[in-house]
Structure formats: C-alpha cells, structure tokens
C-alpha cells in the first residue's frame, strides 16, 4: 500500500517534470532561435531552418558592439543608470504610499485611491507631449532626470497598487500588536511590514528593472544625443524599415541586453519567495 503510493507519486513527479520541460522548451524556442541566429552569418539567418547552426561566427557580436557611434557597453551603462534610479525611486515612494492606502484611515482615502488608479489608465502617448514641453522648459531634456525623478514621487502607480494589495493580504494583528507595543506608524512600517513585504518589493524591483530596461518610447524622446542613448533606442538603430537592417548584430546585441535582466532575475528571485512562511513570523 505504502510502496505503491510512493511509486505513484514518483511517476507523477516525473510526468510533471517532463510536462514542464516540454512547455519550457516550447516557450523558449523563439529565444533559442534568436540565440542560434546571433551566431549565424547574416545571409544564413533567414535561410537556415530551425535551430541548426552551420557556420558559427562571432562576427555579429563584434560588429554589433561597435556598430553605432559608441560601444554598446555605453548604452548598457546608460540603461543601468536609469534602471537603478527608477528602482530606488519606486521602492521608496511606492511603499510609503501603499502603507497609507492599505493601513491608515484618512479623509479622502477613497477618492485618492481612485485617482491613483486613474493615472494608470491614461495612455502615455497623449501625456508625453505635454510632459516633454514641461521637462523641456526646465532644461531636463537630454538628461536622465525626466526618466528618474518622477519615480521618486511614486508616479508608477502600478506598484502602489501592487503593494496595497500585498499589505492587505498580511494579517492586521501584526501591526496592531506593534502599535500596542508603542510603535509609531513609521516604525510599524519599516520594522514590521517592510520585511514581510520582501516579495512585493522584489517584484517591484524586478518589474521596474525589466520595464524600464525595455522602455522605448519615453527614452527615445528624452535622450537625444548618442552618448546618452539607452539600450532599446540603440537596438532599433540596427533596423531600417526602409532599407538595410542588420539582423545579425540586432540579435547579438539583443542577447547581450537580456543578460543583465536575466541576471537580475536570477539574483532577485530568491527574494520573491521570502514570504511569511520563510521569515519565521508564522
């Protein structure tokens, strides 16, 4: 009886792994194709089928790295600056706002919350022109300021909402207890809730990283001189819908540009799962 059950569960576990691996492979196929293609000579990219690699070359990487006016590392660095600023900004400002929305009762909380949600809903495309005019008038164009400073003031309402939902999922007795012990709001927030919010903070950091890293529209509009270019505008410079596109270098540099994101995720994912279960509170 007992033996058959373990055998059964082992079969089930193997099936699960096989299924997940197949699904993973299917999902990764386009990316693998891009990886393989980045090692192909340009003329083979669209003529070679599937994932077969005949003529291996690193040319795309060397060409792509130096193709634009600055080495590609420069664009990676610029993106990194913007990303870091945005992460710090979002983590601090959004968590503060989220605490107020989730745990405090105050006059106007309902409509302020609604207002916050509304700001997520208006498409960027119509905001960007007035915003540009505003930032241009204070001389911020062609600096990273328009991309970072607003984040310090919780303009990415998405993350406020994320953290609000997260905090509301945490038992209220925890901070009630802290309050009774004489903790003020700020200490309750920093010492009780913040550690418990690690997964939400990690999610915020990772998402901010990826979204900012992949953002094209606002970066192409605010950063105009080549030395201030970030990754996405630089990548698009390989494409010319009107003529010659450099597919090989595009793929090679796309791979290069995913690496930091991937590393950030690999490093950050252990914080994603640091829930109550692992912090020892319960």
């Amino acid at each position: 009886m007992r033996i058959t059950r373990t055998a059964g569960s082992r079969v089930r576990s193997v099936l699960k792994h096989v299924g997940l691996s197949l699904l993973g492979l299917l999902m990764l196929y386009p990316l693998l194709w891009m990886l393989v293609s980045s090692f192909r000579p340009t003329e083979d990219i669209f003529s070679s089928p599937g994932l077969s690699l005949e003529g291996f070359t690193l040319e795309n990487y060397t060409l792509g790295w130096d193709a634009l006016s600055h080495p590609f590392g420069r664009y990676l660095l610029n993106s990194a600056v913007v990303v870091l600023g945005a992460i710090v900004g979002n983590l601090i400002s959004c968590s503060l706002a989220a605490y107020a929305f989730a745990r405090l009762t105050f006059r106007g909380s309902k409509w302020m919350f609604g207002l916050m949600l509304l700001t997520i809903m208006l498409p960027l495309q119509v905001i960007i022109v007035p915003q540009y005019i505003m930032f241009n008038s204070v001389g911020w164009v062609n600096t990273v300021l328009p991309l970072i400073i607003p984040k310090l003031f919780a303009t990415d309402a998405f993350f406020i909402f994320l953290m609000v939902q997260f905090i509301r999922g945490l038992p209220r007795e925890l901070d009630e207890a802290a309050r009774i012990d004489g903790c003020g709001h700020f200490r309750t927030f920093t010492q009780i809730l913040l550690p418990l919010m690690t997964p939400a903070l990690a999610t915020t950091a990772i998402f901010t990283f990826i979204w900012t890293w992949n953002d094209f529209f606002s970066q192409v509009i605010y950063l105009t001189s080549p030395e201030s270019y970030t990754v996405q505008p630089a990548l698009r410079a390989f494409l010319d819908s009107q003529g010659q596109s450099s597919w090989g270098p595009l793929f090679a540099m796309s791979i290069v540009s995913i690496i930091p994101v991937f590393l950030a995720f690999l490093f950050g994912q252990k914080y994603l799962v640091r829930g109550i279960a692992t912090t020892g509170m319960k």
Partner: protein
Amino acid sequence: MKRTARLSIALAGVTAVSLALAGCAGGSTPATEEGGDVTLRFAWWGSDARHTATQAAIDAFEEANPGITVEAEFGDWGGYWDRLATQTAGGNAPDVMQMSDAYLAEYAGRGVLLPLDDRAEIDFSGLDAGGVASGEVDGKLYALQAGANFPAVLANPALFEAAGIEMPDDSTWSWEDYVQVAADLTKAGVGAVGTDSIIGDPVTNAWLLQHGDSLFTADGKVGFDKDGLTGFFELVSELSTSGAAPAASVITEQMVLSPDQWGIATGKSAMGFAWSNLLTTIEGSLGSELDLLRMPTDSKESGLYLRGAMYYAISAGTKHPVESAKLIDFLLNDEAAADELLAERGLPLNTSIREYIADKVSDPEQRLIAFTVDNADALGTAPSVPAVGGGTYDQVIQRGISDVLFGTLSPKEASERVHTELSDLLTAAG
C-alpha cells in the same frame, strides 16, 4: 550658467517640485554667443551603415569649419518621427534634420521649416534643377534632396533562365505583359512565384502618373478621382488570381517585412517592385545580381521619375541658420562629404558629385546611376510631395490592397475608400 539657472527657475513656476529641483538641471543648453563657437544638432533616421557614413561626413565638416560642432541625433524611422514631432511641439527641434517626402509638406506647410531660397551659404549652381524643385512647397524651397531614387521593377535573371523565359523588353511592355510573364514564371515551377512586393507606393505612384494622375496635387488635394485607382486595384487582384503573385497573406506579410526579407530578396519571387535605392539591400540579401527594369505601362508615360527619397531641411526656430545652411551645403556639394556619404541616401542632387562618386560607389549603385543615364529620355516630372495631412497615405493604400487581396473589397470599392480616406486626412489637417 547663472542665466540658465535663473531661467529654468522662472519657467519652473509650473510646478513646485521642478522649482525645487531646477538647480540640478541647467547646463544642457549650449552656450551660443561667446567665442563664436556654435553647436548644431543634426538629426536623421536610418540604419547603422548610414550612421557611420554620416558621422564620418560630420567629422569632415567639423574639420573644415572650426568653431562649429555638430551633435548627431539618429535613430530608427518610427522613433525619429515621434521624437521630431514632440521636439517641434516643445520648441526644441534640431537645427538640421533629415526630412522625408511624406512629411515635407506637413512640416513646411506648418511653418516650422526655414525657407532655403535665399540662403547664400548654399551653392545651388551644381544642383539638378528638377531635383531642387521637388523640395518646394507652396512655391517656396524648404528642403534639398539628400538623395533620389526611382520606382523600378527588379527581376531575377537566374530564375528567368531556369524557367526558360526570356527577359522582357522593358521599353515596350504593358501591364498585361507583366501579368502574363509573372504567371508563366510561377507556372514554370522553379520554386518561385512570378512577382510579389505589390505593397504600395512605388507602383501606385508610377501607375497614377501613367494615367495622367498623381496621389496628390501641388495645391494640396487628392490627385485622382473616386474611380482613379480602380484599374490599379484590378491589376492587384489579377496578379493574385492569375497565380502571378503568391497567396494574399504572403503579400500582406511583406507589408511589415523589411525589404531584405521580401520574396525578391530571398529568391522566392522572380520579379518585384521597389524604390531603386533598395537594390543594394535586396541584392545583398539575395547574394546575386538583379536586373533593373522600367515599370510596365499602358500609356506613353513611362511612370519613371526621380523622387526625393530624403531631404535635408533646417528648423525655422534655429538660432544658427548660417551654420546650418553651411552644413547642408557641405553635405550636398563637398567632395569630402561625398567620399563618406557616396550614394547611401540615393543619387546625389549635385550632378558633378553624381559623376564624382560614379566609380567610387559599389556595383549596384553604379548600375543605378547608369540606369538613370540610359533612361534619361523616359524620365518624367516627379509628382508633388504628399499634401499636408497626407503623410500616412501609404498605409491607406496598403489597407486597400490587402482588402482587395482578401476579397473584402472590390477594386472599385477599394478605390473609392482610398479616395475618401485620403480626402478625410487632408480635411482633418485643415
């Protein structure tokens, strides 16, 4: 420095925070008056090859003009226009910009480009007069061609040979001949269809010219009547139903592909329509040589003309009109610039530069230049650039083509819809 800071503080009155933070801004506006040093911003779109060539030409310009620094702003086509429109809205347009014929009237007609007629810094003597005229809007010159191209049929001689079909005589062929040859090619079963890349403006423009029409008129109206494109859409439909062209979805897919992936560039099609400057790209992708042919025609008009593929223009708001004009003059007329730019943007506007680079350019470009010389007698006048509001005409036509191919619209309906939509665009632009 102090002035900039004070200025930004004054302007920052809009918001409390910008006010508080304005101190850390500053410094980004170049100092202009002192020392005669001038910084120009020069923006263009294109591929990395263009960026390299243009940057080299800029270096040559800076060397020849000490005291002028040129800051490059380059990017892809889509991002370029979004940014340029936003910058213009913010009163911060680059001094010198690459302009497309599609948006030339839009920008010039809105008064944001500087008229170039009387700029003494630009030497007009060597420039092709017809080419210069193509940069005029409402009788004033706003832009100068950075390069010209022409509508052409590209044909793959190897596939013709494999199919046992003779290369047609492009000085006499009609559209019916074209459909016939293409259908025969497909039937020959050489692993390719007869034609594809029926995807927009080179054919439409040539076809309208052959019928005495044009997409737009010089006074900013639609240049054909409601039925004017019916014949064109019938042709599209015939190419598809006769088997001359591939399946509807394959043609439609090419509308979003870049030219190096079109059927003619991958050997999956024996003929295709293209702007001539794509020859290098397409041959590069195909790996073998293509023949350049004139468009078929049913009238005395060949439909062949030199089109301003791209222009250089100056922002009306520039603080340095003299230096900006100098830069354009250098790019157009100086051999040092020509050494770098060659024919990357198309045939040079300056006829002696055209000769100067003739044996320097790559082989496909040499054949392009030779083609314009050989067919000089067939060259007609270029149609007017798209009217204000009509910059997105190509998408309207492409949608018409795919609706005809998928059978949702009849050729007549497609022609009417294209006409209505283009008229609406012009009306909306007011």
